[in-house]
Every structure is written in C-alpha cells, then in structure tokens.
C-alpha cells in the first residue's frame, strides 16, 4: 500500500519476544523434570531423621504407632506394603475381567449409538471423587455386602483366603478391594476400548472369512492386537489402586499383619490410608516416619507407572 518501494529486509520487530517466549517454553518443559526431582528430594529431606536422626527416638515413635509390636522402620512399613499390594492386586483381579468385558462390549457388541452412551457412563465412573466412593462404600456397601461375604465364608471358608467368620460390619480387605475395583475399572476399560477399536478391520475380516464366530474372531484378532495395551492399562490401574487413600481410609478397619484372611477385620492397612490416618496425631518424628512410608509408595508407583508407559511406548512404535 504505502509506496515504501525497496525496503529489503528491514529488521523485524518482536525478536526479543520471540526469544523470551521460547525460553519460557523450554523452562516449562524442564520444570517437569525439576518438579519430579523436587518431589523426591523434599520427601527425602523430610524423611531424613529416619536415617540420620536419633535411632532410639525413632524406635520409640514407631513402637508408639504400632502399639509396641515393632520398633524398626522396616518392621513397620513391610506389613503396610503387604496390605497395599494385597488390596491392589485383589482390586485389579476383580476389575480386570469385567473391564475387558465392558471394553469388548463397547467396541464390538453394542450398536454404535449405545456404545457412545456407554463410553460416557464409564467416563462418569472415573469422574466421581474418591471421597464419595469412600462414603458410599462405608455407609451403603459395607452393610449390603455382608450377607454375600458371610455366605462365602460359610461355604468357601475352607479356602484360607475366605476363612471365616466373616466380620460384621464388613470393614475388610475384601470389601475395600471391591470398591477399589470399581474405581480402577474405568482406567482399564477406556484404554482397552481405545486399543480394541484400533484393531485393523482387515485382520477382523480375515478371521470372519475363515468362518470364525464372533468370539473366535475376538480371540484371533482383537485380543492379540490389544495385548500390550491391556497389560499397560492394568499396570496403570494397579498404580492407581496402590495410591488410593480415601476409599481405604473410610472403609477398612486397619491392622498390621501379614494375614490374607480377606473377610476378617483389622488384618491389613495400606500405606496411603495409614499416612492419612496417623498424620493428624503424629509428632515431628512421626511425620518423618510417615513421609518415609510415602516415599516408598512414591517410588513403587513411579516404577509401576514407568513400566506401564514403557510398554505402551514400545507397542505404539
């Protein structure tokens, strides 16, 4: 427009803004690394008195936590770890098959219109806050599930897992596992649904072309294709279950043993719920002890999640 005729490459404005913006973007990327390192370091510093502090004071703290049962950190944390893993694995076992079933239902059985609706239902399950699951589990499920567990204890009591008598109220590992299963179900379902939907149509048609029934087609084409996706989804779900606090805290009647009597109360406790339960009354050293257990939880979930992501990463290449 203006007749500035040959302004060959006048210096461009906004160069500084360009550089500043780029710098901020880089900084924010690197911040992720810094934050993760900070999580580890702050927890570590805060838990330091466990290692570098007065050991007799530590022992006294732990023995006051456990009612004198043990006075070493590992004697304290290992039963908790056992309880955490036990509850999480159980939840995963319960949720796994149901989730895969729902995922298949959405991806291969339900008509398209219903399938989108169902996906919303699953997303809804994921959206409900854990404190509400805790409230529901503690007030509704615990009394409602007692007859069922009682039946299990009576007739299947010869299996050590189900050794009776079933506690009433059912504030037990078994009930907590059911609630946790409901909570991790959406994770497995939505991830495996996505991967089932990506099964190449050609492979599915090839299976049908050989005269396979629907189930045989799923076994031949869909499941093998989605295998690594299912595995990594399950590990993510495990990670979620390991770290769940509120539902466990509000339902489980805690104990500190290596028991596997699922239907009896006061047998196990999880690390996360234990932190939330002991935290309000803990003194300074107590808090350090709890943070020490939290650090262990952090490392375990980190490893589980890292492995899960590595599996997906490999599968998607």
């Amino acid at each position, binding site marked *: *427009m*203006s007749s*500035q*005729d*040959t*302004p*060959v*490459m*006048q*210096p*461009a*404005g*906004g*160069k500084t803004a*360009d550089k500043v913006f780029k710098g901020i973007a880089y900084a924010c990327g690197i911040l992720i690394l810094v934050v993760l390192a900070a999580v580890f370091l702050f927890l570590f510093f805060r838990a330091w008195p466990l290692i570098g502090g007065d050991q007799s004071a530590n022992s006294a703290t732990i023995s006051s936590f456990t009612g004198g049962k043990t006075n070493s950190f590992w004697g304290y944390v290992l039963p908790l770890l056992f309880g955490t893993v036990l509850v999480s694995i159980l939840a995963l076992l319960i949720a796994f098959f149901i989730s895969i079933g729902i995922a298949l239902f959405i991806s291969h059985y339900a008509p398209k219109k219903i399938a989108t609706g169902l996906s919303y239902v699953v997303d809804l399950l994921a959206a409900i806050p854990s404190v509400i699951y805790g409230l529901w589990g503690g007030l509704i499920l615990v009394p409602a599930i007692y007859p069922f567990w009682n039946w299990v204890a009576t007739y299947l009591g010869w299996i050590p897992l189900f050794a009776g008598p079933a506690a009433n109220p059912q504030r037990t590992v078994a009930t907590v596992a059911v609630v946790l299963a409901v909570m991790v179900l959406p994770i497995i379902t939505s991830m495996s649904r996505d991967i089932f939907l990506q099964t190449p149509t050609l492979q599915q048609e090839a299976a049908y072309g050989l005269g396979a029934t629907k189930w045989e087609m799923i076994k031949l084409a869909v499941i093998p294709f989605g295998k690594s996706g299912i595995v990594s989804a399950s590990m993510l779900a495990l990670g979620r279950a390991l770290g769940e606090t509120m539902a466990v805290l509000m339902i489980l009647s805690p104990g500190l043993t290596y028991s596997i009597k699922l239907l009896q109360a006061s047998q196990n406790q999880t690390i996360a719920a234990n932190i939330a339960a002991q935290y309000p009354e803990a003194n300074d050293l107590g808090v350090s002890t709890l943070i020490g257990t939290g650090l262990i939880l952090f490392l375990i979930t980190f490893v589980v999640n890292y492995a899960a992501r590595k599996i997906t990463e490999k599968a998607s290449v």
Partner: protein
Amino acid sequence: MGQRIDVNHENIYYGDFLAVEDVNINIEPNKVTAFIGPSGCGKSTVLRTLDRMHELIPGAHVEGEVLLEGKNLYDKDVDPVSVRRDVGMVFQRPNPFPTMSIRENVLAGVRLNNKHLSKSDADDLVEWALRGANLWNEVKDRLDNPGIGLSGGQQQRLCIARAVAVHPQVVLMDEPCSALDPISTLAVEDLINELKDDYTIVIVTHNMQQAARIADFTAFFNLKAVGEPGHLEYFADTTTMFNNPQNEEAERYISGRFG
C-alpha cells in the same frame, strides 16, 4: 514493484543428505517463472529456500547464495522472519486461518506483526488486497463471515490476498492450483497474470500446460535417479522450453516420455 532473485551455486541439504545440487538461476523481476520437473526433483525445496521456509524442517540447510535485489538472504545479519515479509508464499492447499473472518484473514499478516491499523486504513487494505486477488466482488458483502466457508478456489484467492496484503516484492506459489477444480484454477491463473505487474512470481507446478499458459520463463528440474540429488537441468523462456528445447531430457519430459 517486483524484485529480482539470483541464485548462485545453491546446495540444499536435509541433515547430511544432499537433496538439491548446484542451482544457478536468475529470476527476472515482474515476470512469472515456473518450476517444473518430475516429483522428487527438488523444485518445491528450491522454492522454499527462496524465503527460507525450508528452515522449518529440522536439519535443513543451504550452501551458496540467494540474492534478493543483490542482498544475500543467507547473510548472518538477515532475520528469516523479515525475509518472509518481502517474499510471500502461497501453498498447495488453501489454508485460511479457521478462527478468522475473511477480513481478518486479509489483515492477518499486518495485524500479527503488531502493527496498529486504524479502521479506515484496515478497510482500505482489505479492499485493495481483495480487489488485487479478484475476490472483492464475490465477498464484499460478507467480509465478516469465516474464511473457511468459501469455496476452494475462493479460499486460495483469499490466501493470495492475505499474502499480498503484507506488500511483498516476490510471491512464491507452491502448486497453488493442485487442490482446485478447473474453473477455480482458471480464476487463479488469470490472477497470476495480473499480479506480475506488481510482483515477481515464482510458481511450482506439476502441470506443464499451466506453465505454458502463464509463465514467462520455465526452469526444468530433474534428478538422475531416486536417492541422487535433484538439479536444475535446463532454464529457458517458456516459448523455447515448450517449442524448441535445447536439452534432451527436457524435451523427453515435455513430450511426456517420462515423469
């Protein structure tokens, strides 16, 4: 007014891979120069080095010089951003900004550079650019509609209007009609013919008839084999290129024997 471009001993690399070898070409001001050649010969790559757009691909770099009216685009003190203000570009697929109206699309180049425009200046610029792109009569009543709602050919002319609105000296076009139907193509070709009064135009086309119709000069790029670097095989005025080429490969290509 258009400016001239002189390319001297240009080698283009992607990382270590030499993609185009030793290009020497003089592009006349206020003329249409067409790049033709088989796919993979590097004609689009060469075009993109004329406004340093190839630098968006990590690892791509250039040896040699590209002189815009005597000034090397690759001198250390030259900012690629300012190069692109003097050398505009129109792409294969029309790509108006989907969040902007027709009017905003035309003003995008000026506005995004943070220049403040008064309402009347903006109105004038929009009308001027759209008239320049032969689009004004079709859209003057709906300037506030989204640019994405236009037809493909209109969108491409909108993109040309957007490019000329920043007042470049040179307009590069990378197969601007390949996504368009024949009628829209004709409209864009007419526009190119008018634009050369004000700009130097370089156009890559896979369509030899198009080159014959609109170009004053034609450059034929070729490559010896897949994996070998592309090179400029033959450069001539369009009449010679299509009627009496003094190059065997070019003749074989133009008569449709390969490519």
